[in-house]
């Protein structure tokens, strides 16, 4: 596997609380899963994806975790087209123009 160089901007993953360590008053489905955390920062040493690594964050905190992404990017968007939305505008404009 490719080596990720020291100093690369990465994202790490950490389990904060394991199943069994979670707060008592949570719903069952949340009790059954760990509390997980993701943090981004600069890699402190060469490593491979999936390695336990150490990073330095933008505020100079040192955080440990599993290396999960290199140069993490944003993937959220406007989703798939929702045709219902188009109908709302057409209905309302017609109503205003024609007086319904």
């Amino acid at each position, binding site marked *: 596997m490719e080596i990720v160089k020291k100093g690369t901007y990465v994202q790490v993953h950490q389990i904060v609380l394991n199943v069994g360590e979670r707060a008592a008053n949570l719903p069952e489905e949340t009790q059954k*899963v760990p509390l997980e955390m993701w943090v981004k*920062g600069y890699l402190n040493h060469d490593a491979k994806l999936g390695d336990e690594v150490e990073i330095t964050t933008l*505020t100079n905190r040192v955080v440990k975790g599993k290396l999960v992404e290199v140069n993490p990017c944003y993937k959220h968007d406007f989703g798939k087209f929702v045709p219902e939305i188009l109908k709302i505008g057409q209905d309302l404009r017609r109503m205003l123009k024609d007086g319904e």
Partner: protein
Amino acid sequence: MARKNEIMKKAVGIDYSKFQTSTIAFDYEKMMRETGYTLQEVQEIQRSVGVGNTPLLELKNLTALVRKISPKGKGARIFLKDEACNPSGSFKDRRAAVSVYHAKKLGYKGVVAATSGNYGAAVASQAAMRNLDCIIVQECYDSRKVGQPEILEKQRKCECYGAEVVQLTVGPELFYTFLRILEETGYFNASLYSPYGIAGVETLGYEVAMQCREQIGKDPDVVVITHAGGGNVTGTARGLIKAGAVNTKVVGASVDLTGLHMASDKDFNRKSFTTGHTGFGIPFATWPDRSDVPRSAARPLRYLDRYVTIKQGEVFYITEALAQLEGLERGPAGNTSLTAAFYLAQEMDEDQIIVVQETEYTGAGKHHMAQLSFAKENGIEVKFGNPEDERAGTNIILPEHPSLIRARDVDLIKLKKSYIKNCIENYKVDEITEKDAEFLAEDTKLTLEEVKNILSEINVKVVK
């Protein structure tokens, strides 16, 4: 956790014990006075960073639409305070401006906030302006690492202002991580619920009153405020009072997410709203001190004249209506109060004024298209119909006709009783002092007599 109070004292710079006057009672106004800033100081702080003084726009086409479906003579003029014009795109800049100013003044090197919403972006933006470090702690993903598109967008926005974003899966234990970061960094806790955070919103209510007087020549009859943690309601109402608009009715509005558990890994991505909903609105009204500071400065029951809920599908519908009829593309969450106003205006006379006090920015992830698409992907049925049939987590019903949009009243007396009961239970007392009872009356906008009646119903004695 045992060190919680000590960490908090260091991280907010307030000794809350100073204001405690009895077991339950504390001097709220003294806390706001001594630790907050005057309205004028807040205005200056905000002006210096380009926050506030947002336009008040009349929504003429939406008003015309309201009048088409109202009885003759009904249909108040709807005005909108366009808070999306703030630097980071929401009214939260007002809260962040004061907190971050204060942090800088006290010499903190950075600020931390626990928020998945617009407040994170606001703190990050203000921290950038004042050259402070910033960490935002977000509840973001479910256990499949599927993130709410709205929250993912907020991560991007915080990072674009140079903030570090710590992302967590669902669960209230986020607070432990937040505390650990406060302790590790020694940064300022830019809590939404500190007096600074609330003082920051007072300018919003104040501006609404002043702009109405300038533009229309009178005070608004009703101001509708999206209600979640209580700060928006509290700050806006206090600002209206400071402007002397004492006859203006304050109405809170939340999206109805009844049936969805806020700490549920499964429900997390089955809701289309991450704030402004009943999952915050009700618990924060009935127990405001659940927040991340010992005594919350957000105390909505002191100010609410009426509290209504609306449905997810109705908000998406009105969000599209705002774009199509008024040429204003704004984020859906900020349109919660607009949706309520659309209904409330139908109950009011044509010469009356109803003001919606916020909008928020929109964009990828934080848009009704993204939210509806995400809902469909998560098995939620999206269809036209009667919003009364909407069940949060199962379907989203877009109103077949605008006349089907409703604001549904929440029984405020019930919430007030529940708050008083929570006080008794959480402070583990079976009798309280006269001072406590007076505080409860202030904190619930009830008379002392009414509070005493509620207390006797739950067998709690008031002693001297």
